[in-house]
């Protein structure tokens, strides 16, 4: 009987060893991702059918016209937002699908990315962007918590915090979005959204905080209440708050993203140079302007913008005529050129209608480049303001949530 027991035990242990022997180490912390070689940075996003979940990657491409290969892509959170200063690439955690709760600073080169610094993020805090003041100071508005973190942009060490809770309308967070620094003042747009991520129906106005960058104290909140515009800037798109050659600050305002046919106001508000108040005469609700080159469509929302100079803005605007059932997948926005001076909007032909996961804009070598994910064409498209013509320069069969050319 002892023999029987011995053999049984031996057989069981043998089986255990057999399986143990094929155990494999997993190392999720391996950050030696090359991210691809090149000087064109893209963020391909593959959505699930709902459009609100999926996977995103960071990838460098050597040149336009080449095939996009994902082999060396670095996975980031779904539709992770990105801020870039020089070769510093700040990658934020995904808000849509939970990912690691950390903000990472990568230093990129033509050969790839090196992880340089990181900081832990409070769950639910929803930081989307970093606004750099200098090498020692940067601001990170936290949309969810309604405050602004002050950090060292090199080390990402926390230096302080600005509490904005007193400026919130109806809830706990004023939803601080994109900001811009001018004359020692940080101008922070407040989105003031409700539980459905849309502006409160009883609070359709533009709020901006003016913060002294030397003391980090809020000087005042300014509000533009006459135009009926709301939702100033999407927090991760730096081009939605820009300065023209005269240092006038313009803020692109989304309104209800074109989902509500009863409220389509969207456009621009302006804080003139040398001033810390709105000039309401320069506010422009673009929803009343017919887009040239269309069948009488008017913008129902502005999704992204980028200042080209000479009072001209390249932008993506949404049109009610293009809406679908799902706001995350509808190809409802088109590329346009907006003239702030003449108050005209003209469609750029040659760039397909896109869903909201694309629509990134950047400038390189005198041309402007945008991403679009259309029904039958997608990738990167160039726009030459000199000729007014656009052409596809990179084919990629996924959304491109971000584009930057070094």
């Amino acid at each position: 009987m002892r023999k029987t027991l011995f053999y049984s035990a031996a057989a069981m242990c043998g089986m255990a060893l057999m399986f143990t022997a094929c155990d494999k180490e997993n190392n999720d912390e391996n950050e030696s991702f090359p991210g691809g070689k090149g000087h064109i940075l893209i963020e391909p996003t593959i959505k699930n059918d709902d459009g609100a979940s999926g996977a995103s990657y960071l990838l460098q491409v050597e040149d336009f016209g080449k095939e996009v290969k994902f082999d060396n892509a670095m996975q980031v959170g779904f539709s992770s937002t990105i801020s870039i200063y020089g070769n510093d690439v700040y990658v934020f955690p995904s808000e849509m699908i939970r990912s690691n709760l950390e903000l990472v600073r990568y230093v990129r080169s033509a050969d790839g990315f090196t992880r340089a610094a990181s900081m832990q993020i409070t769950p639910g805090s929803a930081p989307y962007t970093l606004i750099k003041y200098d090498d020692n100071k940067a601001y990170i508005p936290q949309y969810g918590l309604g405050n602004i973190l002050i950090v060292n942009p090199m080390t990402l060490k926390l230096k302080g915090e600005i509490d904005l809770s007193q400026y919130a309308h109806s809830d706990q967070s004023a939803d601080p979005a994109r900001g811009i620094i001018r004359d020692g003042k940080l101008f922070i747009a407040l989105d003031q959204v409700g539980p459905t991520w849309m502006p409160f129906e009883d609070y359709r106005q533009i709020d901006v905080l003016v913060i002294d960058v030397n003391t980090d104290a809020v000087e005042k909140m300014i509000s533009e209440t006459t135009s009926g515009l709301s939702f100033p800037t999407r927090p991760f798109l730096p081009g939605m708050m820009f300065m023209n050659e005269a240092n006038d600050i313009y803020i692109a305002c989304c309104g209800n993203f074109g989902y509500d046919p009863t409220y389509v106001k969207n456009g621009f508000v302006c804080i003139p140079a040398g001033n810390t108040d709105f000039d309401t005469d320069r506010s422009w609700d673009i929803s009343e302007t017919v887009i040239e080159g269309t069948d009488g469509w008017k913008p129902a929302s502005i999704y992204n913008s980028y200042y080209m100079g000479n009072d001209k803005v390249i932008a993506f605007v949404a049109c009610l005529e293009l809406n679908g059932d799902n706001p995350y997948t509808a190809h409802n926005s088109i590329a346009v050129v907006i003239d702030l001076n003449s108050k005209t909007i003209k469609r750029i032909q040659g760039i397909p209608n896109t869903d909201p996961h694309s629509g990134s804009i950047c400038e390189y070598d005198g041309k402007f480049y945008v991403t679009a994910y259309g029904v039958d064409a997608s990738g990167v498209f160039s726009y030459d303001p000199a000729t007014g013509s656009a052409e596809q320069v990179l084919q990629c069969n996924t959304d491109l949530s971000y584009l930057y050319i070094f």
Partner: protein
Amino acid sequence: MKELRRIMAACIMVTCFSNSIWAENIDADIVGTVYDIKNNSPLPAATVYIEELEKGVITDTEGVFRITGVPDGTYTLKVQYLGYNPTEKTVRTDKGARSNDIGLKPENLSLSEVIISEKSQARILREQAMPISVISMQQLQGTVSDVQSILAKTVGVTIRATGGLGSTSRLSVRGLEGKRIGFFIDETPMADQSDFVDLNDIPVDMIDRIEIYKGVVPAKFGGSAMGGAVNIVIKEYPEHYMDASYMRESYNTNRFQTVLKKNDRKLGLVYGIGGGYTYADNDYTMESPYIKGLNIHRDHDAYQKIMVGGSVKAYKWWFDEVELEPVYVNTYHEIQGIETDIRYAHSKSQGYLLNLKLVKDDFLVEGLDFDMSTALAYTQYNMIDTARSYYDWNGQAHATPSVYGGEIIGNRYATNSDNRKFTLLNKLYIEYLINKRHSVIFNSLIQTADGRPSDELKIKSLGKQVDFDSRMRSWVVGLTYDYRSLDQRFLSSLTGRYYWYGMDTQYENLYVTVPVEDISLRKTSAGFSEAIRYRITPGLMAKLSGGYDVRIPSENELLGDGSTIAPSEQLMPERNLSFNAGLLYDLTGIHPTNLQIKLNGYYMHVDDMIRFVKGILGAQYQNFGEMRTIGVEAEVKADVLPWLYGYANVTYQDLRDTREHEAGKDLPNPTKGKRMPNIPYFMANAGLEFHKENLFGGSGQNTRLFADASFIEEYFYDFELTKNEKRRIPRSLTFDLGFEHSFFDQRLYISGKIKNVADAKVISEYNCPLPGRTLGIKLRYILR
């Protein structure tokens, strides 16, 4: 409607046609019951054999047998049942069926022989034409394991769990999972009550066997499943029976279960009452998937379930069986945070179920078997998330996004829901035995669900109502033709099905203030399946099956749950074209090793697969264009030595995206040909069992020692586009050890188990770490 009439007309025609065939048949049937002469209890799986005709059958769970197509004459019936003295009886047939009750006298009970008899019954089921795995009572008896743990060791099956006891988990068969895998108790569909009755709620000790169907699901299950089904067959009990057990496991897990049965053979009534109480703290420590180096002690995951059920079964009325079963279920579950430290949110539910089952052979006409069950359920579900602040893992409090509260991250609203639902389910199964070779089966499954969600706090938080009353109706009707060759070597089962469903509700867009939209859907579809089996030699058989199955979305998938799952009214039925081929080499009862080798290969092409996807504003069910699966399963079981049983199985399932384009696009699909994400593709299990009677001396004792290993290869949460994919479910290997010792001729059991002996980190759902090593001990007493 025209389609329905056509089908009804076809059914009537088939019935009439069948009657005429029956009328021409001059052969008789020999029917009867085999029972224990000592206590009058029926003996299932006894062999009844006509010596002169070399023809035999096996008794069903009620001890009933029927030998069809016997020519007029006098015959010797030989009846055998292991553990009983064999007997013979001379019978004479004239015309029509004669009842023959045959009593058997027990031999001196031998434990090993009992084990073999249960295997015999399992063997009968394996010989169905459909691919099926059977977990027999022997594998279940006395173990500490719950049903899910047992299923997880079955070839082609995985369990996708998110936490400890009571946590959300999904059963995956061949990569298809969720509600498409039918969950049945005694063939009654339970999938739509899965929020209230869970696989693990069924006490293992009450289970006679678990049948796992893969690919084509037999008609008797009513057509509500696609890709697979799990049927839990509850034991039939002797005249007087009491079974009570208590189990204690790690993390303050306590389970008490009992069942009492009394069989009044004089009145022909069986009374039963049973219930269970389960409580678990689930307070294991896990490593945070979001914050490096942070260990989280789960202290808000308590789970409690109370379940009470009764039954009254009459078997001497006009119906052969009339059974009424009321069930009450009460659940409380705290919600454990992983990303944040949730301290208050929890859910509660109550369910009242009533099931009526009517069974009659030779219903109205001879050869017509009738089986109908009707279930009513009234359920109430409360989700409570009203905390005004939420906590991070540093203990710091933060204000919730809504002033009304709501600490579950991602929600921007508070909730205090009171969702009530009334469901009705009617399953009808009518089989007409035309003669010994042919039979026709009509089956119908009608389901209704009326939902009444209510959540004033959520309306206040969101500023609008987004959950509305709903009404769903569905009907699946099928017709099956079964053919058996005279020598029983060849079986064929051909089924056609028709599906109809309708839904009425309202929809309010979360983003837009526009009038509430009325939703009214009516959809139909059709499907078919064919399964054949051929016995090449007494120990070797081949199976081939294929089908085009449709699964209509459940009301939960269409309408959401009123809290965390958003409605998805546009959801399409999913369709599955499948082919299965299998070989079974089975020496059970033929050779001392009882060797069994099973090899299956299959192909599936699923269109509009319904997937559960988490997004920014909660989760939702969605259709996924199309995918295909090629899979192979292999399994070997044997009594390696008289005292050592071993098994090993391996599964490889290759599920790939086959969409040419994404929905609404002309562009090539960038993930075409890629492995489907978040579905394991390579699994293996192996185990050994040592068993010996009276190992430590004495008498009436039996000892078993178990060792089981389970392996799942690493897989990805997303499509694998780059070698740098970060979101992965790591390779897992777990190793379990257990023992069981019974005393007093299997009346008292003591058993114990160590799960995950090596304390390996195990994750089966992305970012949801599971408990490590757990210990459990169980005491069970049976009075009979």
